């Protein structure tokens, strides 16, 4: 019997997802990652699936493939999100608003829905969603992004209640500004303004989030569900 932890990570080809996937690989876990593109991780214990997590059928087929390939999934880290320039509400197009909802909220719903089913059946699971400090900042220009991330928090708490009796926990890691390639598009002045609003006034490295995820992913964390772990306060 395979006793290695089996971890699924969405958005594993870059950014936070890439670091999380590598972190679990370094711990000896089997990792099933996904992204729309090809794999950027080459490791014996890593398997990549090219899917769009906003596409219902893609997600359903992915989970069915995972059941066949691994037979169980211990942890899912739902990390996919759209990082791009937003604008104030008055100049945000409906399409732009919907694209944030799709990439952040709908993808989280689809992935969590399918994984929660397998985890209920195996009577064990750890669902970890990635939030954002933006849901606390109420910063101008984040009407779509922050709203979608706030909705992920509420969704995670509802799901936590629904699956609590089946040994499945659902929690959120909510990072402050993370240093990723995607954030570069926002520019220095935006970064400085956002950091001013945070207690920790530096962008954090994605690797610094991994031990927070370890806490929720641990089998020992069975008494923790529906919780948010923020990396710092908003000033």
């Amino acid at each position: 019997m395979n006793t290695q932890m089996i971890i699924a990570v969405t958005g594993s080809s870059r950014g936070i997802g890439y670091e999380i996937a590598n972190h679990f690989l370094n711990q000896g876990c089997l990792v099933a990652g996904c992204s729309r593109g090809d794999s950027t991780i080459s490791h014996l214990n890593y398997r990549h699936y090219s899917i769009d997590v906003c596409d219902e059928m893609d997600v359903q087929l992915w989970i069915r493939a995972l059941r066949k390939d691994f037979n169980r999934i211990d942890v899912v880290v739902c990390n996919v999100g759209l990082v791009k320039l937003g604008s104030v509400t008055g100049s945000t197009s409906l399409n732009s608003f919907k694209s944030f909802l799709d990439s952040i909220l709908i993808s989280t719903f689809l992935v969590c829905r399918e994984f929660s089913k397998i985890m209920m059946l195996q009577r064990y699971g750890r669902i970890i969603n990635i939030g954002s400090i933006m849901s606390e900042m109420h910063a101008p220009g984040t009407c779509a992004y922050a709203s979608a991330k706030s909705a992920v928090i509420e969704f995670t708490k509802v799901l936590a209640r629904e699956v609590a009796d089946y040994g499945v926990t659902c929690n959120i890691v909510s990072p402050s500004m993370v240093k990723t390639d995607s954030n570069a598009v926002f520019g220095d002045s935006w970064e400085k303004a956002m950091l001013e609003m945070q207690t920790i006034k530096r962008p954090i490295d994605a690797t610094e989030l991994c031990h927070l995820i370890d806490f929720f992913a641990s089998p020992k964390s069975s008494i923790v569900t529906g919780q948010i772990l923020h990396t710092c306060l908003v000033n």
Partner: protein
Amino acid sequence: MIDKDIVFSIMQKSFEGLYASGIIDQIVDLTNETAIFGSGSKLDSMAFVSFITDVEDAISTIQKKEIFVVLSDIEDLYPDAPILTADMLAHYLILACK
């Protein structure tokens, strides 16, 4: 070609499996009117997820095609139905396999 007898046989087998594993506490003898979802169903949320997963897997294997149960599609077929019965689910699955 999948037909109602095959679908009923799959559903009955799933009910027997759920009973054998203690997920439901009484055996269900399937009829057209057996409630699968909604008032009168013997399936709680865990049993329902398990039942649908069993049925999807079995039918996908037989059909060599990925089949998923989408509740809103069944609601479209039976917009006024207060519950999902075995007959309705079988009808939906046969259509999904075509």
